[in-house]
């Protein structure tokens, strides 16, 4: 298995002097294709910064980031944009879709930005939407969709084409538990098809969908769960009723 996303001793400092904030300290993270990793921590623990650095939206103060096999520090601003539209998909908490575009256009947008013709991009977009069970809603505008549908469209956009890394920041934060569960199911399914996924959240229920949970505290990785054992082992130490 190759690591699609790798952070090595990544630190991030905001501001300087008395207002200096150390958001991340020497964080190591490796996410392989097909793996969904949850980064869990309370607010202010630096988990959103971790995500923006992993997604090449921000540069680390020190340390190295490799996305889809490419060292980010060696890429120009334009190359990073290209990497994002080609290999990285984002899902944010509430604001994900561009208001002026229909669902399918939103999904097809990264492909079009990458130079794929409108027709081919729309076909790919429609396919991604179908996988999310949203083919009916393809031609609706974001404000005509429910919150859960919007997040599903966002996931479709995050995995459309040949995406290799999907990054999600509290993707179910604005949803009720049933819709949130549906979103997480889809995200997990996307990862099982071979994408490396990272979800950052403070919510244990959300994190529990991941194959591995990384605990972040004050910008440091303090602990992580191993790849989970099978269901069978549940029964062995079963809680006494």
């Amino acid at each position: 298995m190759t690591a699609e996303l790798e952070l090595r001793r990544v630190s991030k400092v905001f501001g300087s002097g008395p207002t200096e904030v150390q958001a991340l300290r020497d964080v190591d993270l490796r996410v392989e294709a097909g793996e969904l990793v949850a980064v869990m921590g309370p607010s202010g623990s630096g988990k959103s910064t971790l995500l923006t650095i992993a997604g090449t939206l921000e540069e680390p103060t020190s340390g190295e980031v490799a996305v889809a096999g490419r060292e980010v520090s060696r890429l120009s601003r334009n190359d990073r944009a290209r990497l994002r539209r080609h290999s990285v998909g984002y899902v944010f908490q509430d604001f994900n879709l561009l208001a002026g575009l229909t669902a399918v256009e939103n999904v097809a947008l990264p492909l079009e930005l990458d130079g794929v013709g409108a027709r081919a991009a729309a076909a790919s977009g429609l396919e991604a939407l179908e996988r999310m069970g949203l083919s009916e809603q393809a031609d609706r505008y974001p404000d005509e969709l429910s919150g859960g549908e919007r997040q599903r469209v966002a996931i479709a956009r995050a995995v459309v084409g040949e995406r290799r890394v999907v990054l999600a920041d509290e993707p179910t934060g604005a949803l009720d538990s049933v819709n949130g569960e549906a979103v997480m199911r889809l995200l997990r399914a996307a990862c099982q098809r071979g994408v490396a996924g990272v979800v950052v959240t403070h919510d244990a229920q959300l994190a529990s969908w991941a194959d591995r949970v990384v605990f972040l505290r004050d910008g440091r990785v303090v602990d992580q769960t191993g790849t989970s054992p099978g269901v069978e082992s549940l029964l062995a130490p079963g809680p006494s009723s």
Partner: protein
Amino acid sequence: MSVRHALLALLSEGPKYGLQLRQEFEARTGEVWPLNIGQVYTTLQRLERDGLVESDDTEMDGPQKGFRITGAGRTELHEWLRTPSDDAIPPRDELVIKVLVAMGVPGVDVPGLLQVHRHRLVELMQRYTRLKGDALDDLGVALVVDAEIFRLDALIRWLDAADARVRRLPAPGAVKVGRVAPGPRRRLAARR
């Protein structure tokens, strides 16, 4: 979970053998609550003694013995379904007690301790979530697993809140856990 009423509920669908009852119980709860066969037969005997179920053959004990629900049994089942569960009485929670105790013991890294428990709880939750993820259509399993997940979630949240409170304290030595007001303590002890 009252095994007694769960068996009555299963029998209300029709006559069943003891072994069959155990299998169905476990299947419907996603094997979250394991049940041994002895427990099943003890419960069935008590039910029969109280006249809530009746068996078709009194001579033959064992897995082949069939049971069916009586009229009194149905009445009892419906009564039970409508009785509110007693949530007003707080259950004694081992985790809470452990953390409380840990704060009084010198040299214990409380946040570290909290993380050990959190780690364990999240791992458990991951297993339940996996179970839920694999069982798409089984409503019963989903409900039982959800109940467990929400229970675990509540514990994890409590850990997070405790963590935040501990962090807000100026120095570790200043924790005054030993002087918890006697009233609640007595009550906790009395509830067993």
